[in-house]
């Protein structure tokens, strides 16, 4: 049987080798963006630093040389020493562990909680939506750092509590993002089609709606890690986060503020570390947005 359809379709089909999923396609797009790749490299650098800290930072974080207090950068101490005679480079390297840990886990925590709340609000709507959305509104009405301070004040100052506080204040951002995405996706025809083949609500939620609303969450999440690191540093600076002698970057800033004029390196280098990490995540996040958003629309 001569079938004209066959010929037309064959012209349009792509080479099977080119078959690649939306995620891989996003990665190709991302690689094209040079600035984003720079951001990715910075982030990767700090991650490697954090992982291999014990091998790189031989001095250890708390090795004190009382004779070597507040020394400027030299061949022996590349970034100088602080008021206890501790090597600043080593402390910054160990500090990367703390900052990245806080950044990642706080964001993952708020993504999980925010996604669940956002999905429930968006999918079931009505009074459930009203309650959850108003709850988000109330949380967003507070300046976020103030809310974090209040939470830490209740829980008591420690790194772990600072992490929890940061996770909590970020929940409404992700919740709203997911809710709005779910609202638009649930009207899509493939959701009706999925119901049409007899799929259960819960399965539609998790295997169709959730994966489709992930792209903006990943972008927002990367940017939120940067903010979370800053917030952790701010809480550390205020003495509400990491406690001494932990080499948390914000804490290091706070400890060295008295020596700003006599030994500026004690403050400059932890500050630079914070700035670089945050910059890395921000550049990467922007690149991810460019790579993922247009792809997910088509």
């Amino acid at each position, binding site marked *: 049987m001569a079938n004209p*359809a066959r010929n037309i379709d064959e012209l349009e*089909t792509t080479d099977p080798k080119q078959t690649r999923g939306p995620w891989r396609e996003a990665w190709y797009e991302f690689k094209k963006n040079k600035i984003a790749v720079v951001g990715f490299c910075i982030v990767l650098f700090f991650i490697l630093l954090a992982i291999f800290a014990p091998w790189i930072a031989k001095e250890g974080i708390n090795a004190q040389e009382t004779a070597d207090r507040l020394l400027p950068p030299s061949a022996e101490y590349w970034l100088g020493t602080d008021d206890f005679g501790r090597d600043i480079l080593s402390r910054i390297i160990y500090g990367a562990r703390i900052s990245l840990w806080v950044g990642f886990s706080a964001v993952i925590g708020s993504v999980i909680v925010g996604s669940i709340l956002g999905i429930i609000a968006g999918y079931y709507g009505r009074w459930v939506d009203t309650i959850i959305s108003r709850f988000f509104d109330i949380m967003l009405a507070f300046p976020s750092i103030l809310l974090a301070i209040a939470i830490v004040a209740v829980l008591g100052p420690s790194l772990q509590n600072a992490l929890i506080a940061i996770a909590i204040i970020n929940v409404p951002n992700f919740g709203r993002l997911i809710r709005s995405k779910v609202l638009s996706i649930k009207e899509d025809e*493939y959701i009706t*089609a999925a*119901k049409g083949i*007899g799929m259960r609500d819960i399965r539609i939620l998790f*295997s169709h709606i959730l994966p489709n609303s992930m792209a903006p969450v990943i972008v927002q999440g990367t940017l939120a890690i940067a903010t979370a690191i800053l917030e952790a540093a701010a809480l550390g600076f205020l003495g509400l986060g990491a406690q001494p002698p932990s080499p948390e970057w914000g804490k290091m800033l706070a400890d060295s503020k008295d020596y700003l004029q006599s030994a500026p390196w004690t403050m400059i280098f932890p500050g630079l570390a914070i700035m670089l990490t945050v910059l890395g995540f921000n550049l990467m996040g922007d690149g991810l947005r460019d790579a993922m958003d247009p792809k997910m629309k088509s």
Partner: protein
Amino acid sequence: MEDKKVMLEVNDLQTTFFTDSGDIPAVDHVSFHVHDGEVLGIVGESGCGKSVTSLSIMGLVPNPPGKVVGGDIHFEDKNLLDLSEREMRKVRGNDIAMIFQEPMTSLNPLFTIGHQMMEAVLIHHKKKGKQYAKDRCIEMLELVELPRAKDLMDEYPHQLSGGMRQRVMIAMALICDPKVLIADEPTTALDVTTQSQILKLIKELNDRLNTALLLITHDLGVVAKTCERVIVMYSGQVIEEAPVDKLFDSPKHPYTQGLIQSVPDVRKKQDRLYSIEGNVPLPGSIHKGCRFADRCKFAFDRCFNENPEFYQTSDVQKARCFLYDKEGAVEHDKALTRS
């Protein structure tokens, strides 16, 4: 035809949308049935309740604001409206399947064709396992005449053209051997050449698999090509029911007559296309009389006051119009002479 088994019977179905601006009876006392292996066309303009009728059968009317408020839908000695959500899920996709209007958006962009098709099989036949599901998918893709069925399984929806995606949707709808297939404007979003191929395919599969087919469309050309029997809907009501040849040869309801007159005929020279004046009234906006009365050139007093019944005009044809009320014959003669 009469000796065939009735697969799906809809009686007096009423679906209403409860909105802030009033209740809209989108489907208003609609009744029809489909036989085993038959192709029944549902024709009507936008907003006449065709799609809501099909969603009501599937139990997928968006609630709120919509709700099926009356009638029954019989399928295999069951009233679908009495089934629980859990029982209804077993019917959907398995016994009654549906093809949607937009092939471009009916597939999840994140997953491969194979993943989504296998999902459809495994929902209803989990015990048979993944290998069975995979074989079945490839078999179905070949049945809908898609080339390279095996490769397609690993491809993503955006790599396929609209026509191919609609074929995938058809394959997916038929994958569990449904007894009734509802096709809601399956060709509207496709270009004309693809349209005729898809229609041909649907028709062939209907002959081969003996699935009862409910074809919803606004295109009379599609009806003429594929359907055996047609119901015409207007403003939420069924206004005419006829075998397809009768509908085109001697349409009874003035609206149907108008519709058929509006189709351009290449064999005749026409200066202007015929059109029915006015617009379809929103369901629920007319409370008294025939819904079409305002636009009908035969309308007489009774039309504005009473809602006509569904009169039998011949042994196979019915029309909801007072012109066919035998007792009102005198009045309608007057109306005919007037026009």
